[in-house]
């Protein structure tokens, strides 16, 4: 008998406490270690206090876990005012006994030290605060201020160690914040005491543009994201985004999506783009990239699908007005709530922030299509490689969500094949190229498909025309002297039409000639026929005469023989 395998008891994983901060719980795969202290460190203004306060407020409002906020820096009413802008009503939460804010005032000038002491007072205060509301979460912000209040470092350090033990004993999930020191995570080396989870916040300014970053330095007993994750502080608090997806295993779709231009769809195997694919439209200035993007947005909205349009160059109103002139009515879609337009200068904030902002808006609006117009301007806030990495992450995210994305990119270089468009051309699924073709003293737009993964697509250059009724693609004319476009194409078409008329004319003339020739020949044939018949008659006549002659002669001869026979009758019969 096979041995019955004993069911193994499930291995107990580290229990975690959800923070409720957007994105953080994903990076930490479930939140902060429950019942243990976590250290959050960072330089001044990196968002430590807000981070920890949001942890308390979210715990109280979303998870029903009351929290104690022990402030060593700011007073309770200052804190309340500071976070009121985020929509956190601390006064109400305090009244509801969900949050307790305890301001610890430390004034060096008031305190004199003599002899031995301990920090039991702090412990009792904290313990009382925890017990009075049944707190599950505790924040100590910033406990390092104690170091400025007390001289005896040896006592302080010993007491801190005891404090963290005390917190663990109480079973509360705690956040301890600490100011970043030179060469160490915190000025006073708090990381020595709090060793379960350390999160580092950073606020970096490059090229005058600031980016807030978060990194989990360590997290004992748990897997976690190790990268620096940008985060955003806005009217809804903190949002962190785990923006790097390492796995390329997003769902794919067989659905096709029209580009809004019938002739372009025809070039793309007759059906348009794949849903969830990424499309790059690149071209030099004034080639109609925005028009193409607007046409795509228009088409999406017409199908009652939501679309979000991020403009980095023009304001939404400007785009709406401009597109009206080519017969694309974006305003009605905006009014219906199908189209959302967001305009911001790229220099508004750093790249990562842009990404976070885009993520947030997409998460909120849940569109089926996203347009970024143009991505080129993003280079002003980051290097090409940074833009590329940002776009990779954006594409990854959108692909996972099955959202179709269209980028437009301005190529400054006329040698288009060498230009790599922020390096995304290799990432995108379809790449349309719109370019100026100058000839005969005029400028025309030509469009072709550089690539389009997974579908049959035309290799032809088409003339891209923008009319009052919208966009269209026209076959270019391939003449003796090469590709003809614009007025040259029209001229050539005229020439052809003239030739056609002339040819028809000539044709009719020739037909008449042929007719004439035929009648002449026919009459000739008739006379020859006559001639032939008379000759035949002649010949026939002599034939008959001869026959007659022969007959008569025969007759005569028989008569002669008969006559001779009668004369010599005995001769013959006597034989």
């Amino acid at each position: 008998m096979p041995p019955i395998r004993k069911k193994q008891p499930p291995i107990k994983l580290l229990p975690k406490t959800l923070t409720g901060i957007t994105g953080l719980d994903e990076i930490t795969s479930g939140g902060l270690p429950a019942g243990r202290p976590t250290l959050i460190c960072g330089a001044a203004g990196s968002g430590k206090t807000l981070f920890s306060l949001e942890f308390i407020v979210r715990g109280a409002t979303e998870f029903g876990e009351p929290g104690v906020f022990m402030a060593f820096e700011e007073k309770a009413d200052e804190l309340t005012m500071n976070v009121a802008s985020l929509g956190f009503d601390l006064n109400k939460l305090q009244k509801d006994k969900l949050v307790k804010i305890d301001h610890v005032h430390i004034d060096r000038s008031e305190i004199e030290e003599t002899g031995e002491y301990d920090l039991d007072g702090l412990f009792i205060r904290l313990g009382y605060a925890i017990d009075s509301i049944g707190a599950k979460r505790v924040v100590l912000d910033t406990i390092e201020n104690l170091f400025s209040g007390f001289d005896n470092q040896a006592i302080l350090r010993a007491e801190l160690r005891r404090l963290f033990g005390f917190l663990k004993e109480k079973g509360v999930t705690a956040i301890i914040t600490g100011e970043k020191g030179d060469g160490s995570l915190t000025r006073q080396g708090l990381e020595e005491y709090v060793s379960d989870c350390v999160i580092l916040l950073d606020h970096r300014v490059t090229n005058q543009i600031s980016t807030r970053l978060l990194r989990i330095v360590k997290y004992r007993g748990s897997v976690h994201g190790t990268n620096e994750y940008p985060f955003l502080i806005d009217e809804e608090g903190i949002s962190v985004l785990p923006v790097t997806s390492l796995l390329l295993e997003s769902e794919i779709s067989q659905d096709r999506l029209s580009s809004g231009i019938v002739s372009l769809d025809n070039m793309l195997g007759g059906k348009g783009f794949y849903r969830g694919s990424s499309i790059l439209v690149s071209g030099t200035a004034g080639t109609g990239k925005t028009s193409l993007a607007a046409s795509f947005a228009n088409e999406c909205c017409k199908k009652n699908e939501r679309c979000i349009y991020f403009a980095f160059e023009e304001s939404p109103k400007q785009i709406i007005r401009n597109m009206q002139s080519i017969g694309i009515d974006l305003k009605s879609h905006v009014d219906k709530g199908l189209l959302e337009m967001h305009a911001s200068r790229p220099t508004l904030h750093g790249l990562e922030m842009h990404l976070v902002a885009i993520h947030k808006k997409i998460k909120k609006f849940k569109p089926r299509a996203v347009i970024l117009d143009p991505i080129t301007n993003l280079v002003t806030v980051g290097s090409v490689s940074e833009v590329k990495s940002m776009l990779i992450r954006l594409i990854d995210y959108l692909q996972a969500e099955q959202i179709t994305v269209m980028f437009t990119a301005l190529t400054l270089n006329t040698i288009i094949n060498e230009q790599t468009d922020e390096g995304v051309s290799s990432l995108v699924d379809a790449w349309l190229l719109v370019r100026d073709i100058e000839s005969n003293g005029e400028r025309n737009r030509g469009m072709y498909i550089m690539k389009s993964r997974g579908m049959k697509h035309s290799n032809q250059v088409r003339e891209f025309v923008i009319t009052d009724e919208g966009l269209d693609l026209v076959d270019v004319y391939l003449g003796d002297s090469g590709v003809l476009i614009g007025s040259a194409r029209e001229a050539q078409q005229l020439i052809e039409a003239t030739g056609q008329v002339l040819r028809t004319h000539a044709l009719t003339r020739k037909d008449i000639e042929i007719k004439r020739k035929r009648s002449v020949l026919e009459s000739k044939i008739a006379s020859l026929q006559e001639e032939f018949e008379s000759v035949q008659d002649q010949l026939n006549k002599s034939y008959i005469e001869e026959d007659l002659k022969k007959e008569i002669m025969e007759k005569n001869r028989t008569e002669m023989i008969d006559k001779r026979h009668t004369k010599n009758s005995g001769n013959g019969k006597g034989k």
Partner: protein
Amino acid sequence: MAKASRTKKEEVKYELRLYIAGNTPKSVAALNNLKKYCEEHLKDQYKIEVIDLLVHPQLAEGDQILAIPTLVRKVPVPIRKIIGDLSNEEKVLVGLNIRPVKQ
């Protein structure tokens, strides 16, 4: 009447409050030291109030007590705090702003 009030004022020239947490050796030492200094230098001018935070934890917040033991001089203002077991007489007197009685 005026004299009486003055004498009364004289009596409570110093209002001292000692925060302790249970009968720890440090707390006991602090109380003994304090009593000794007061008898020596502030005879009949002081009032000592001992608060055990284990019994009344809610009182810790009011006087911003962190360390134990803490001696708080409530009167005269400004409030002064002395932490520790008060073993250093000189420091305590300076901290409480008491002129020592010359012996």
